[in-house]
């Protein structure tokens, strides 16, 4: 598998180049003169000229791109126009929050979806099946920010069980950190849970119908053994597929969830810097998220081919 990973990684490099090109083009497609935009209309020509030189705006676009890419590869994503803090540093500061949220959301969604998907497939047309079908349809159509608002209202304002928003970092207090994570994790994880439930159920149904399962049942293996050994592994493939397909949506929803719950993560950094018109931060975050997304997809692909021996990607 490592060899496969390595080969796929090499194949992804041209794609990453193109992605970086798009990100570069995005910011440099800014309407208007960047120098005037950042320094104001009143700035004198000398200051404007110095700003342009400092940012390399006077050089040809290709040279600018090469310089920018070179710096990015070394981890230098520029500096915030507002705070002068290196963008890479800002991202790394906030990354733990986003990662914790993602892990929590994935855990919540799999904890809900896996049992529900399996049980509803095994006990077709039962009450559980009905609940899970409804959940699958509803969970996916529900806008995350609406669900979040409802959860905040019920659990934080009415019942006062959980904090309505805000973040307590892990080193400060573990229980408070976990508490502040509950509502965001459920908000983020529900849509994914809905899809995984649906996919898992149909995947399991397919597998349960297949010949070898019936043969195993005929041989006298208990239902649980059948489900456990044969069906489960194949069903897991569908879970990985769904998670892989939904990674992009998950990242997007993370931005919304972080904004709704005022969590100081990478997603919030992007929104805040858009309102600050801090374009270098915006650019840096997009590049970071896009590269992260491509690499995660790669990982999922490799994992997928590892799980399903029928598919070997060359």
């Amino acid at each position, binding site marked *: 598998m490592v060899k496969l990973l390595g080969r796929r990684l090499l194949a992804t490099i041209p794609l990453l180049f193109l992605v970086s090109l798009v990100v570069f083009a995005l910011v440099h497609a800014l309407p208007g003169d960047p120098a005037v935009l950042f320094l104001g*209309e009143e700035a004198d020509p000398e200051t404007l000229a110095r700003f342009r030189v400092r940012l390399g705006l006077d050089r040809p676009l290709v040279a600018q791109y090469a310089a920018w890419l070179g710096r990015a590869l070394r981890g230098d994503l520029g500096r915030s126009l507002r705070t002068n803090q290196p963008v890479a540093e800002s991202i790394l500061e906030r990354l733990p929050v986003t990662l914790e949220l993602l892990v929590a959301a994935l855990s919540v969604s799999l904890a809900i979806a896996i049992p529900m998907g399996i049980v509803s497939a095994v006990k077709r047309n039962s009450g559980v099946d009905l609940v899970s079908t409804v959940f699958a349809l509803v969970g996916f159509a529900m806008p995350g920010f609406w669900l979040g608002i409802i959860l905040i209202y019920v659990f934080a304002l009415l019942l006062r069980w959980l904090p309505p928003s805000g973040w307590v970092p892990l080193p400060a207090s573990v229980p408070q950190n976990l508490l502040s994570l509950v509502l965001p994790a459920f908000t983020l994880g529900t849509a994914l849970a809905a899809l995984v439930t649906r996919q898992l159920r149909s995947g399991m149904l397919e597998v349960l119908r297949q010949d070898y399962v019936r043969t195993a049942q005929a041989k006298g293996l208990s239902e649980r053994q059948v489900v456990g050994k044969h069906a489960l592994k194949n069903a897991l493939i569908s879970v990985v597929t769904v998670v892989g397909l939904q990674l992009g949506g998950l990242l997007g929803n993370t931005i919304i969830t972080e904004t709704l719950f005022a969590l100081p993560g990478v997603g919030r950094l992007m929104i805040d810097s858009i*309102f600050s*018109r801090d374009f270098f931060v915006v650019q840096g975050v997009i590049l970071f998220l896009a590269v992260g997304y491509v690499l995660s997809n790669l990982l999922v692909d490799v994992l997928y081919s590892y799980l399903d021996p029928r598919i070997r990607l060359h």
Partner: protein
Amino acid sequence: MRDPALASPRRSEIAPVKEVRVVDAATVEVTLTAPFSPFLSVLTDRAGMMVSRAAVEKYGEDYARNPVGTGPFRFVEWVKDDHLTLKRFDGYWDPSLPHLDEIVYRPIPDHSVRFAAMRTGQIDVMHQIAPKDVAAARAERGLKVSEIASLWWQAIHLNNQVPPFNVKAVRQAIWYAVDRAVIQRVVYYGQGAPAWGPFPPSMWAQDREFTDWKRDVARAKAKLAEGGMPNGFSFTVKGWNQPTHVQELQIVQAQLKEIGVDMKIELLEFGKLLADLNSHTFVALRIGWSGRPDPDGNAHVFLHSKGGLNRVRYSNPKMDELLDQARAESDIGKRKALYVQVTRLAAEDAPYAWLHHDAEIKVWADHVKGFEHISDGMMRMKGVWIEQR
């Protein structure tokens, strides 16, 4: 402070200081270039906070990261955007103070997160509460809400140099189209007071007889026509993306629509808003001023043609004269008369569309004792102690 290389923002506040002479260990003589009434008030604020010469010489530009002052607490650490910690200074000149051992300041920009932290006991004192939350705070057990008059004013800065607000009549149209009473009631829940000038009710300088600030749609339309825009016009106002300000701007938007003016709203993060204000990159910009104890501090910098914060580039020699006179005059009665004229002239020229004077509201937990709430909004912890339960 006067060293231009250090670019202190307080420099203009002590401009009239000519020389300082040390008389003895407890007396200092300051000579001014001209009579300057606000001087003592200026010294009660940021400009009067003592700074260690040795520290400035040692740290230079990094002094802000290693501050040394003369207060009852000493600086421990500052993690940007996270917290700032102070600890008790044992060598304070009054050995009975302070009572507190440690103070931690936490910046929480989101008002609902801040209020939630207050309610759950994560913080003990809260600065700035959204007007809509005040009622909930008062109803909450264990919290004390203190509402006093403030020095604030909120206004829309109108760029006097670019169209359409380079025409006085157009600015006056905005002045009469805005309904300050409604804003006071709906946005601020009756807290604070409507503003028709730079002097809030807490100041002796306020012109309480002035009534020409009430909404008058007919007059606003007439002013528009007078200014050459009888069919209205369109412009963009920049504002801070906080719910209270968004609500207020939408109300102004609806009110201006009635006279045919189409106001678009551009919401920005506060730092960017301030940067745009300082670089004159705006046609209209809505922002507040936290205020200074002396009326001169609320007016001179904004209305004098050479005022350090006059970003709208307003210039009227008569106004300059009034302001300069008022700051040189030491008799309060005479100063008040001058500031009344300032208010009337400012309403006539309408370089700013003043909207509201905020109430100064602080919320603190019941176990916090000895907190003296002062209208400049600064939190002085010298005499504060925590009551153990």
